[in-house]
């Protein structure tokens, strides 16, 4: 920590010194974001007031750049953290800091301190920040990026991972080190640089060190592996705008809290293809992940120190009811999944397309359990189960089919409609405690936008979700008015009109207004916030219901 503050100060001093010599003094850029909430009790929606009565999360990033050198830090405050955020994030201090030297002529880029990085498709190594979710597994150590020759990119990482924050950064237990190499064959061979066919093979290796010891399982005493290695072979092929790829990832025995301390190896296979034929474009993706949870501390769960990230197969929905009631998260111990997406554009000026054209898309995604057999005896205690095939198991995790159509009718009016059919297994992704089993839901959305005057527009959304299970039917209405480029106001009402318990048929009304000036944005909102679920790469976090005032401010400079 101390070295980085010193580094940063040094950077600024050097910059200041150089300025007096009228050479390039370097540039400081930064951003600020503040989220303040104050709470009121509301027994109807189950909103409680925390002892501090309010919450504040604030962040500021600063980067100083001078030529090839840059240094940055993030100052964080949780006073106390807002409801639903990991409550153990406490106090104020520096949660991220680094110094970096990068010379593209030489092909060397070195970072000391914190950094984020991803190898390949992220199935083996992905360090990232999803701040809204309270997930941050930033690396703290050294990153070296090398481009020794055109077409060859090598990444080396070595460090610990962020686990917690209590007035300063707290890293997890294990040490993560890895190397990733990617070769762009077209850039290696003269004459192929501009070829339509581009082939890029890649290889990654990651290893985690954590002190071991023994565990007792049934009648056996087993030794925990101190070093756990994983590797990924990947290949990406581009042909014009067509693209396909395959990633095969393996990991050696890694008994952990996630997998019930079994010694089975981990394996993942993912392949995809995207392309277009005439006015159709498509995406096909198939993936199987088996026992691939990988953390820098084997005893931790949920959002804590994941080394890799297995993304969810379902579409990242944007409409409130589709996005927040039943969000799917990858089943971390294993799943077999598929998605297919089809996009079609009825051209402008065509008979069906109308003056401005019409866009349609159909998305199908599904995930099942793996095809496995449980083992018995000593084998069962040690390895748990065996996988019989690369196919699908018997138990459905999720099936999500959605169709969307969007059309601009005139200069001043456009509309979008969506239908979604969902089957969601709440035993696989535990997003609710009210119902265990498969929720069958139909969701309808109609969105319209009308230009009411020069630079003014009115946007509305009407959404309905119908289901016999869980909390029953929901409806949402959104009305938003904007005065470009500075002002906006919106009201959202979510109504659980079909809840089997009549006392819970509640309106969640929330209003907000805000001001935007260039890169600065202030918004103030008041009302009831429904309890919700945030999910990412295999884990979900519940945000409790709350009621009260919310102020957000973001700015960059």
């Amino acid at each position, binding site marked *: *920590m*101390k070295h980085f*503050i*010193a580094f*940063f*100060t040094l950077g*600024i001093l050097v910059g200041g010194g150089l300025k007096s010599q009228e050479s390039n*003094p370097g*540039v*400081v*850029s*930064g*951003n600020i974001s503040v989220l303040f909430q104050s709470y009121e009790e509301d027994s109807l929606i189950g909103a409680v007031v925390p002892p501090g009565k309010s919450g504040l999360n604030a962040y500021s*990033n*600063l*980067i100083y750049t001078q030529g090839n050198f840059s240094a940055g830090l993030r100052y964080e405050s949780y006073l106390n953290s807002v409801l639903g955020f990991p409550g153990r994030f406490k106090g104020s*201090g520096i949660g991220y800091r680094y110094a970096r030297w*990068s010379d593209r002529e030489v092909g060397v880029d070195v970072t000391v301190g914190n950094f*984020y*990085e*991803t190898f390949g498709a*992220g199935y083996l190594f*992905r360090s990232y920040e999803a701040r809204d979710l309270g997930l941050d597994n930033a690396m703290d150590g050294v990153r070296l990026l090398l481009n020794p020759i055109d077409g060859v*990119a090598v990444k080396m990482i070595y460090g610990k991972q962020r686990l917690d924050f209590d*007035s300063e950064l707290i890293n997890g237990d294990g040490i993560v080190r890895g190397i990733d190499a990617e070769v762009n064959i077209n850039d290696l061979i003269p004459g192929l640089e501009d070829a339509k066919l*581009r082939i*890029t093979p890649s290889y990654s290796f990651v290893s985690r060190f954590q002190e071991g010891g023994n565990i007792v399982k049934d009648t056996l005493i087993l030794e925990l592996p101190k070093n756990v290695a994983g590797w990924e072979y990947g290949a990406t092929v581009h042909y014009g*705008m067509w*693209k396909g790829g395959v990633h095969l990832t393996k990991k050696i025995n890694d008994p952990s809290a996630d997998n019930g301390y079994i010694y089975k190896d981990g394996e993942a296979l993912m392949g*995809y293809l*995207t392309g*277009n034929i005439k006015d*159709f*474009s*498509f*995406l096909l*993706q198939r993936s199987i992940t088996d026992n691939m949870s990988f953390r820098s501390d084997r005893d931790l769960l949920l959002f804590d120190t994941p080394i890799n990230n297995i*993304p969810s197969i379902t*579409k990242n*929905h*944007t409409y409130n009811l589709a996005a927040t009631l039943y969000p799917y998260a990858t089943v971390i111990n294993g799943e077999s999944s598929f998605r297919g*997406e089809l*996009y079609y554009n009825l051209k402008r000026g065509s008979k069906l397309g109308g003056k401005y*054209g019409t*866009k349609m898309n159909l998305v199908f995604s599904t995930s099942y359990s793996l095809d496995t057999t449980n083992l018995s005896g000593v084998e069962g205690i040690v390895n748990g189960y065996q996988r019989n095939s690369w196919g699908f198991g018997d138990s459905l995790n999720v099936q999500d089919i959605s169709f969307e159509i969007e059309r601009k009718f005139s200069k001043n009016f456009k509309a979008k409609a969506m239908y979604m059919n969902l089957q969601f297994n709440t035993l696989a992704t535990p997003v609710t405690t009210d119902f265990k089993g498969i929720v069958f839901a139909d969701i309808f959305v109609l969105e319209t*936008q009308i230009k009411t005057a*020069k*630079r*003014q*527009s009115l946007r509305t959304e009407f959404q309905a979700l119908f289901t016999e299970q869980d909390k029953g039917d929901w409806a949402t209405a959104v009305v938003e008015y904007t*005065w*470009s*480029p500075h002002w*906006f106001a919106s009201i959202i009402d979510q109504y659980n009109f079909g809840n089997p318990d009549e006392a819970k048929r509640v309106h969640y009304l929330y209003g907000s207004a805000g001001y*935007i000036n*260039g*890169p600065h944005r202030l918004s103030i909102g008041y009302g009831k916030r429904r309890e919700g679920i945030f999910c990412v790469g295999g884990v979900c976090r519940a945000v409790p219901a709350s009621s009260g005032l919310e102020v957000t401010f*973001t700015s*960059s*400079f």
Partner: protein
Amino acid sequence: MHFNFHKTSHAAKSLLIAGVMLSIIMGDSYAQSIPSVRLKDLTGSTIDTGMLENEGNPIVICFWATWCSPCKRELNNYMDYYADWQDETGVKIVAVSIDDSRSINRVSPYVMSSGWEFDILLDPVGDFKRAMQVVNVPHTFLYNGDGELVWSHNNYAEGDEEELYEELLKLAN
């Protein structure tokens, strides 16, 4: 360089304030240029963002994602005017997708079906996003022909394209 952080958290705060003041002081005389990060485009070629140029004409850099509705509204609206803007101001629009491994493969089919003619870059790790101090999307930046930042806007509302167009005209004249 012996610093004790616990005793000097005030120092850290002062540092932060100092940094902010420094940027304000320097903001006038030294404009920000496009930071250098290596990203891929949709054909798999690697592009260094520090080398982005447009023959002395303006460049618009627009951060977006396939899951961000206002971002898509913004870029679809720009597309309606892109040919005219290019004729009048020579502008080039670079749309940087921050989609991560979950949705990165949706970028290409969405772009193809939308008929976007912008340069598309992929920033799945977020290195460029962080270097540009983007907090949330959409966030749009306008650079003049000398590569200096002249205007930026966070969020998108219908009609914001008119403000961008006015800024573009100022650069063209």
